[in-house]
């Protein structure tokens, strides 16, 4: 085992601990209390500190130490939790998470809030706690073994006893089996259970204790048993049974099946703390390999399907129905494998809670952050890639969406603004919504600003949706002045590019004065896509169905030339610009005698008609990245392998629109008027 793998363990564990920490703090904030809760919070920080020290993350350990000291005081009831304390320990969790991230990325940066939060913590810690790092690492306290008052040989060994636990025994979380294994460490032991006293159901007190256990041992004495069970003092009765009979081994008759039917031990099942969620750590590469192989299986299945299909068998032949089963099983496996990589968005959303808190603090606004659908699962790789776009969008919501307290009062709103982050599944997609109850988009201002920046011509007539989408144009920023929060040189265009690269899209719904909702719509997995297989310039290519509106074969008279290289099609009274797909991709395209047109919806250019030579098929394809071995190709997002083993490129419709716009072979935004 290498140091790296240990470090990996550590960071994976930290992730879980920070999740537990945020969880705990969230519950505290929601008004819950109790020793267990505070203990769990304490332990999370404590464990990070303990393990962090092993790797020499001194900043992390020293901060965790102060933090832990404060939590320990809370735990010991030396410090009461008021709103301010809660705020500080919540902020401290953010700083701690950031320190862990820094350690993981080997970054040297210091969290901006570190000094402030640390001194606040130190204020609560009482005496500034000394860091434990330079303690001598071993303090050896030799133990005097021999002279303790115990007779090593007791004369009468062995016997049989009745062990009768009372109800408190179960209530305190004791489990007879544990007790017996405990006893067995001391001496030879046989245990049996007597159900005689269990009443019928109607007379049963669910909290009562009815089971009597008989213990037989050849070498234990009553004293030794009492000594061993000292910590149970008062919770049980032990009495000697005179006669000896053969009693089955505890292994032969385990107490568990018994306890399942009888109420008293069932109580212990409740009292026994739930074990942490059982998880299996798997190297992500193995999962990727599995996903790839299953992708191959799917392709292989469709190859066989094609070949068998070519045999001209009867519809109800056995081979075809077996093949159908094969297809079904292959899909099942694929879904199951994909779900391995699926992860709840919860940790991501928890990180976002931090982002919102920080943003609220930086802007001096009062913001309540509401999260729903934390359990929604999406592909792990998507979780990671969503962090940056979400961070940016949430900062924007706080910074530009939510009004100041005064501003909210003016509009008759509650002083505390709400930013909502939710995730849910909708028709084969995952939707993540970021909404605020702030001022909404000011379309007039947006349009004016875009015109001022030369992004759209002055006389442009844009639909509301088109105006909203201007936010995503490169070089656009709504804030009149750059604030220290969102004004970091990244615009919403970067957000959009990031989402698009995941195969998703972003939409905006806004109501002036009432708030704005951004929806990110993502495919369920990255690896499979519904595509339309087309032929273009003697190549087979795949268009993602998600971008396709419809396919049309217009009458010749409806295709009109509006320039040397520019055609438009009349579709239900509107003119739609034509983009020759082959040409946009730079293929020397032979002239298209009878092209088919596919209407696609793009964010940058609205509706376009892509002309292709023919449409073959519509099917699910397994996405293969080109970037690993080749690099990024303009206009192409990835590749896939078709049933015959040949590679087909997957077209990036958005990029095609941009390519067409930049090469002048298609429309650009200034021609939007035609569409509208």
């Amino acid at each position, binding site marked *: 085992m290498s140091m790296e793998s*240990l470090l990996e363990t550590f960071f994976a*564990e930290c992730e879980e601990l920070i999740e537990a920490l945020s969880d705990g703090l969230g519950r505290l904030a929601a008004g819950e209390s109790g020793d267990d809760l505070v203990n769990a919070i304490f332990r999370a920080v404590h*464990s990070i500190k*303990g393990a962090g020290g092993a790797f020499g993350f001194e900043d992390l350990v020293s901060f965790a130490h102060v933090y832990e000291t404060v939590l320990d005081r809370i735990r010991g009831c030396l410090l009461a939790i008021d709103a301010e304390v809660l705020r500080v320990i919540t902020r401290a969790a953010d700083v701690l998470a950031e320190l862990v991230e820094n350690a993981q990325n080997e970054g040297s940066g210091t969290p901006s809030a570190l000094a402030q939060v640390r001194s606040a913590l130190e204020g609560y810690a009482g005496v500034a706690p000394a860091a434990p790092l330079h303690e001598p*690492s071993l303090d050896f306290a030799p133990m005097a073994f021999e002279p303790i008052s115990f007779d090593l040989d007791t004369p009468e060994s062995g016997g049989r006893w009745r062990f009768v636990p009372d109800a408190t025994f179960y209530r305190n979380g004791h489990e007879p089996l544990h007790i017996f294994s405990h006893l067995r*460490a001391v001496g030879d032991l046989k245990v049996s259970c007597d159900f005689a006293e269990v009443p019928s159901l109607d007379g049963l007190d669910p909290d009562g204790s009815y089971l009597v256990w008989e213990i037989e041992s050849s070498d234990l004495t009553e004293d030794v048993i009492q*000594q*061993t069970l000292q*910590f149970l003092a008062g919770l049980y009765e032990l009495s000697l049974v005179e006669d000896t009979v053969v009693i089955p081994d505890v292994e032969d008759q385990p107490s568990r099946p018994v306890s399942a039917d009888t109420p008293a031990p069932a109580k212990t099942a409740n009292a*026994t703390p739930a074990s942490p969620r059982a998880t299996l750590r798997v190297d992500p590469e193995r999962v990727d390999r599995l996903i790839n192989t299953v992708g191959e299986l799917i392709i292989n299945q469709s190859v066989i399907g094609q070949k068998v299909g070519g045999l001209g068998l009867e519809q109800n032949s056995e081979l075809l129905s077996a093949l159908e089963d094969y297809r079904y099983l292959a899909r099942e496996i694929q879904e199951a494998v994909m779900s391995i990589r699926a992860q709840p968005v919860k940790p991501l959303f928890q990180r976002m809670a931090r982002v919102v808190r920080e943003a609220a603090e930086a802007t001096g606004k009062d913001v309540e952050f509401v999260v729903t659908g934390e359990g929604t699962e999406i592909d792990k790789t998507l979780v990671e890639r969503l962090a940056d776009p979400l961070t940016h969008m949430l900062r924007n919501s706080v910074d530009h969406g939510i009004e100041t307290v005064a501003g909210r009062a003016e509009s008759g709103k509650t002083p505390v603004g709400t930013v909502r982050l939710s995730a849910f599944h909708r028709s084969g997609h995952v939707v993540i919504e970021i909404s605020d109850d702030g001022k909404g988009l000011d379309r007039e201002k947006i349009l004016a600003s875009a015109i001022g920046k030369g992004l759209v011509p002055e006389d442009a007539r844009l639909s509301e949706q088109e105006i909203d989408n201007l936010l995503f144009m490169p070089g656009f920023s709504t804030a009149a002045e750059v604030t220290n929060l969102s004004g970091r040189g990244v615009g919403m265009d970067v957000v959009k590019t990031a989402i698009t690269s995941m195969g998703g899209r972003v939409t905006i719904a806004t109501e002036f004065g009432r708030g704005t909702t951004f929806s990110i719509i993502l495919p369920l997995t990255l690896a499979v896509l519904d595509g339309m297989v087309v032929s273009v310039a003697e190549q087979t290519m795949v268009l993602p169905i998600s971008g396709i509106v419809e396919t049309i074969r217009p009458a010749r008279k409806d295709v009109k030339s509006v320039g040397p290289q520019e055609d438009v099609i009349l579709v239900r009274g509107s003119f739609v610009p034509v983009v020759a797909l082959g040409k946009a991709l730079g293929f020397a395209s032979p002239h298209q005698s009878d092209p088919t047109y596919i209407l696609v919806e793009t964010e940058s250019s609205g509706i376009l008609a892509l002309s292709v030579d023919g449409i073959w098929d519509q099917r699910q394809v397994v996405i293969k990245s080109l970037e690993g071995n080749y690099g990024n190709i303009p206009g192409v997002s990835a590749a896939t392998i078709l049933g015959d083993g040949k590679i087909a490129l997957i077209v990036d419709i958005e990029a095609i629109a941009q390519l067409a716009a930049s090469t002048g072979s298609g429309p650009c935004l200034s021609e939007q008027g035609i569409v509208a």
Partner: protein
Amino acid sequence: MSKLCVLAIDDSLTIRRLVSHTLNDAGIEVVTACDGVEGLEKFPTRRFDTVITDINMPNLDGFGVIEGIRTAKQNRRVPVLVLTTESSGAFRDRARSLGATGWIVKPFDEAALVDTVRMVAGRRRS
């Protein structure tokens, strides 16, 4: 001489792996448990030469582990080392009074851990 075998109880997976890694490298077998309850469950399953336990753990803490082990008379000789970040005197005294054999503060020195285990386990065997 057969291999030494250590029961390591800690709720941190990182620490469990670190301890296992360190001791395994020194030819010492390690059985791990993730809290006091599991520790006490595993303790009777074989003859351990040393128990290493954390203090702060869910379900049953290290004090409970020491107590649970020490209450049986023939376990009074099993060395129990406490491996923790806690360094306060009160904690130490409490552990000692319950019967802890020694106290190692995290982060630990790997060689010192091995030496300590060998020392306490060896003493028991002599």
